[in-house]
């Protein structure tokens, strides 16, 4: 985990010795322990407690181990050898010096005078502003496919295409497999790639680089966003296909009812998407148009109130 740069660590405010502090000794001690530099030496204010002196004598060193708070987030006791190595590397890179910035002095700063009205000021916001901001020379191109691909055959073809492309690059020895996503040509006819050979479904995609590239490509082609859980629990291409093709549970009950084929044959059942309002009931019996005309003639609001 990347450590915060030194300027951002709030604990450094506590460690600033030149400032007069009203912090108790134990808090200061804890702050010192949480600081990275305190893994090697304990910086303390005031006399050394008796327990510390005993521990020093036992271990025979200036910094006896075991003083670190195991529950602190940055405690060295929570670090594995690998992360410790990473931290050391990061710390060496993170050698920022702090400089105080000087205010920019210019003639403009002296000439500044707040305006009394908005006549000559630049107008920010509004439709014209947005129009002016638009840059039609470089229209925005989204990463993913505009709409979610619904047809299962098309999804399958897109997945096969992604697998083929990624593996092509992989066998070509390319480092960055996500380069497949740079091919943005517009042939939407994926179905021509569909074939009867199913061996490609059994391919294992456990390797993170390959999986990531395939997933990224297929998401780009189909517009279907897969959850992290779905990606992590798909060891093979077939499992990925399963995740892509299963449709989400309908959020509204009426959608599920419409999808149910049993209702299609029932002529005596009527399903409504929205609440049946009194206006709907009046329309069904044909009275609404009379009411509407009467309200309009009297200059009264048709829905709502004045």
């Amino acid at each position, binding site marked *: 985990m990347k450590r915060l740069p030194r300027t951002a660590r709030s604990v450094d405010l506590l460690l600033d010795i030149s400032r007069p502090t009203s912090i108790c000794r134990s808090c200061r001690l804890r702050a010192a322990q949480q600081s990275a530099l305190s893994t090697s030496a304990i910086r303390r204010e005031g006399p050394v407690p008796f327990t510390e002196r005993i521990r020093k004598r036992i271990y025979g060193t200036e910094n006896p181990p075991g003083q670190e708070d195991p529950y602190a987030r940055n405690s060295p006791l929570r670090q594995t050898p690998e992360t410790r190595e990473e931290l050391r590397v990061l710390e060496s890179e993170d050698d920022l010096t702090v400089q105080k910035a000087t205010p920019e002095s210019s003639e403009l700063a002296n000439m500044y005078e707040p305006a009394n009205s908005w006549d000559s000021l630049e107008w920010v916001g509004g439709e014209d502003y947005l129009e002016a901001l638009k840059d039609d020379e470089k229209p925005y191109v989204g990463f993913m496919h505009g709409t979610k691909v619904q047809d299962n055959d098309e999804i399958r073809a897109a997945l096969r295409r992604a697998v083929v492309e990624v593996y092509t690059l992989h066998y070509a020895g390319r480092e960055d497999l996500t380069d497949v996503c740079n091919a943005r040509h517009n042939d939407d006819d994926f179905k021509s790639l569909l074939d009867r050979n199913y061996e490609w479904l059994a391919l294992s995609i456990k390797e993170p680089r390959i999986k990531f590239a395939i997933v990224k490509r297929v998401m780009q082609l189909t517009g279907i966003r897969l959850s992290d859980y779905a990606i992590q629990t798909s060891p093979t291409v077939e499992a990925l296909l399963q995740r892509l093709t299963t449709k989400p549970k309908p959020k509204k009950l009426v959608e599920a009812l*419409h999808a149910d084929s049993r*209702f*299609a*044959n*029932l*002529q*005596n*059942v*009527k*399903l*409504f*998407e*929205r609440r*049946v309002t009194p*206006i*709907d009931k*009046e*329309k*069904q*019996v*044909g*009275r*609404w*148009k*009379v009411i*509407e*005309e009467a309200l*309009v003639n009297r200059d009264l609001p*048709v829905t709502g109130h004045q």
Partner: protein
Amino acid sequence: MKRLRLDRWGAQFLPPQYQVPRPRVLCPYQQASHDHRIQHSTRFYRSTPAIRDTPDYEDSIDLATPLEQLPSPPPKLASSSAKLAALHARLSLPSKLPLHTLARCLVDASADPSPDFNNSSLAILGSEILGYHTSEYLLCHYPRLPMTVLFAAQYAYVGPKALRSMTLEWGVEVAAEPGGEVDPGLLQLKRLRPEEAVIQAGETGRPNQQWAYRRGTSSRIVYDDQFGDLKKDATTASGNAMVVGSSTAQGPGATDEEASKNFVRALVGAVYLHAGRAAAKRFFEQHFLSRQLELSKLFDFKHAPRDLSRLCAREGFESPVARLISETGRLSRHPVFVVGVYSGNDKLGEGAGASLDEARIRAAAAALKGWYLYSPIDAMVPSDVEGGDKEKKKWEPAMIDIGEIIT
């Protein structure tokens, strides 16, 4: 003689193939000049029916017209109406009768004047079929019914009031205003306004028109409809007969009773055309004949003892004599006299009353009812043997009475 294939002729009444240009009889509500609001309201009501439109309902109807401007819903919407499908199943209609025909039966001529989209033609056919089956039943099962009672019985089974109550019993609701956006399962009519409801006597078809208000039974049999009432042409407000087929004139509105009558008749006509004669008869028996009618309660005698006496004279019975069978409380506030009318030693009828006269008249009435309400056992109706030799039923001639008593 070759059998008339009415169902073949009736094919012309079946719904058109949706290429018939629909006459744009504009509803008054299209005057609302706020077009955007109308369009908003059509889009506002959005429900997806459970049944999806099949490809062959791809419309020939102009989609640009909002539904409110059409006089009745387009036929293709019939398949998306749950109310209509439920009505079809509730009445156990034959599956040969399609939903769009049922939807057409629910559109009255006052709502949509176009004869291709309303039920007027089907109603004419259906009224004849209903009238035929009812009258053959009554005539064959009660051969001695007097004409006036026959008219009343016919009215009780298939008259406008009966058809109105049947429409209510079938759960058919009436739309508030006709229009294309209305649910096709509602009965659509344009309601009669009070100022239009004046009935003037029109042409009854009689030679003595000035005395038409004093028409007798024989005159009714010849000139009037199946219930003995003046025909519809004679009672229009304008005095002129309504021309069936005129698509431009939107005449006066209709009452609920009239529209229900047209609907039921149209339904019977539609069943006949789509499912055949036997299905129509079965429909009639299940829905109309199953209803209970106390024929004895329809009689209203004016001179019962006199009529009985003439009847006995005609039939050669001994003249009727009323005899007291039992009595109680003669001097009290509520006496009961039980009187029997005897022809010789045979008791023709018995009646109880609070006075001797009352009892005697009731007895005579009971005797006459006994005569009039005679019903032969195992009576057959002519439609039982219609349709060739499928059932192999042999026609047993019905009893024909010599006629009513002339007094």
